[in-house]
């Protein structure tokens, strides 16, 4: 279970807080959507959970399965089951996609006390999972994310998620920049990972993605706070009325 308690955070030394007291709980087996206008702090929340250095937590805590993860490094969090699907996956020239995937999978397996996968087993698993996500062999041969289209990058994120088998998945605007076919493929990939042993947090600006990944709960984030929570029908209401009633803070 993910528990976020009165979380405050800012970028580096900047005065203004971007997160201003978030309280949120996502039990195992549930998918929660975080919706909100631009600048409401959605991406910041994802980065703080994943442990990006640029952000400073000034108050509050993030607990995963009862333990605070705020003192953990990003790789320790990944080993503990945390996974952030990036809104803008980073291109890394010179690092082969397969080398990266295998290094990541084996690092996480080792940290979790599991045996490393040998090359043959690893290749088999990658091929099988890649095929379902329409990630081609040609993409796997390229340097990580280099020259990938927006849709290819997002599919690669979900492939990484499927390979690393996290227990907490945070998806940051996974639908942005995707055409409708890609949204469907990505959503199927995400839905395949839904299960009682996994909690998911889907961050999105638009309701569209939630037609495919149907959430158990929807939270509205505005100016660094959760201002409204409800069932999946809340997303539809927002689609009708927009974010106007919650304001649209332009901070960050």
């Amino acid at each position, binding site marked *: 279970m993910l528990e976020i308690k009165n979380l405050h955070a800012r970028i580096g030394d900047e005065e203004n807080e971007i997160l201003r007291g978030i309280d949120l709980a996502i039990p195992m087996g549930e998918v929660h959507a975080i919706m909100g206008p631009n600048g409401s702090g959605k991406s910041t929340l994802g980065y703080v959970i994943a442990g990006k250095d640029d952000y400073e937590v000034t108050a509050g805590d993030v607990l995963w399965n009862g333990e605070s993860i705020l003192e953990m490094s990003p*790789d320790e969090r990944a080993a503990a089951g945390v996974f952030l699907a990036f809104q803008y996956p980073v291109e890394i020239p010179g690092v082969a996609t397969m*080398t990266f995937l295998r*290094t990541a999978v084996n690092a996480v397996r080792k940290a979790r006390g599991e045996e490393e996968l040998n090359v043959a087993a690893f290749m088999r698993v990658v091929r099988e999972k890649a095929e379902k996500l329409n990630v081609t062999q040609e993409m796997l041969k390229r340097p990580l994310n280099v020259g990938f289209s927006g849709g290819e990058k997002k599919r690669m994120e979900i492939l990484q998620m499927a390979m690393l088998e996290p227990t907490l998945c945070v998806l940051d605007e996974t639908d942005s920049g995707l055409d409708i076919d890609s949204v469907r493929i990505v959503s199927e990939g995400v839905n395949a990972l839904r299960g009682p042993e996994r909690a998911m947090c889907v961050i999105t600006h638009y309701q569209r993605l939630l037609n495919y990944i149907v959430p158990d709960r929807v939270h509205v984030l505005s100016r660094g706070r959760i201002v409204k929570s409800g069932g999946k029908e809340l997303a539809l209401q927002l689609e009708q009325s927009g974010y106007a009633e919650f304001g649209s803070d332009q901070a960050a």
Partner: protein
Amino acid sequence: MNIVVQPTKNEAERAFAAHFDAIASSLPGADLAWMARLRTDAMAAFETGGLPHRRLEAWKFTDLRSRIDQVFDPASDGAEAISESDIYDVLGRGFDELYCYRVVVADGVFRPELSHLDGLEDRIEVLSLRDVLADGDGAEWLRGQLAKAVAGEDDTVVALNTAFMSDGVVVRVADGAVIERPLHIALVTGSTEPETVTVRNVVEVGRGARLTLLETYSTRRSPDILRNSATQMTVHDGAEVHHIKLQNHGMRAVDLATWMVELGASAIYRACQFTIGSALSRNQIYLRFNGAGSVANLAAASMLWDEQHSDTTINVDHAAPGCESRELFKCVLDDRARGVFQGKVTVRQIAQKTDGKQMAQALMLGEHAEFDSKPELEIFADDVICGHGSTSGRLDEDMLFYLRARGIGEDVASALLVQAFIGEALGAVENEEVREALRLMAAAWLSHSRA
């Protein structure tokens, strides 16, 4: 009355002069008047110019005169025996099983007993410089080769090499010969005594021929060596050469290495130099396009730590039209290491349609590391494309975070990024075995520097 100002010679310069007086008569080819003259003239040029210093533009960042304070005795023939396994030990994993012909020059002397030339294809000759000097026709050919080495006339490092060369490898590839197996010239120092080693290799690749040449410069025992090596190469029309150099001396060595390359028409020359050893090193490449429509691709990578100083200086002379030159320099600098890149491209008036580009990039790992980059373009033709760029920076934080967010620890993530950075230059090596051996060495460097 003219007053000739003679700068005071320093100790090192006096030592070179004394060594020359002592051993000139016993150097190979001393019985040939032209060779003796060549050496004497070279020594005179050295005595006039002295060791290069920072007031010379080409040596702005690497002041040999102040850095070289000791000149060891020239390596002697009686140097300690060195075994084959010594050579593999210094080169490390990947090189021992390399599919190649191998010639070993230990302590400045060609060692046939350590070399592997069995089954040498019949259209390539691999000989010792000494033997060629002792052979009438061969000596005449060599005379012509030595006379046309394309180094700058004022390069006193090359002058020293000419004066003192004790041996080297002569390679002649016949017209049209395609030599499949790479030729590996292993220059290794096995002596336990400090020594100065001076080697000259002379390579001629015939029309339409193809050769892959790997040079490795390593030290087995004595940490104190001063090595001056020069390889001159003529690549005739339509030939293709892949030329690779690894320098991994110990951390107290001084290595001065010069390549002088002349390309005919429609030739292809692809080079990669990888430097990880020596306290002080200078990698010089002089390359001249003599014929139209040729391509030269020069990649160089250095990985330095502690207080290492390595200078890569490339002079590309477009003396023929329609040629393409590419230079890529990459260095990784940890601790207080200093990396230098100087890239000079000259485009003569005749060299229309020249396409010349260079890029120098440094990855700064150490707080006190320093990178100096100096591009220089001299263009006398009007229809050319020339460009250069230079960057330096630290590891990209966003890339590091992305890798770590996938469970990869900080050290491994950094190592992946450093290898990716340097790998772009090493990727220029076409031969897969050699490329992978160099990559292993780059990977090993990462743990070495943290030891």
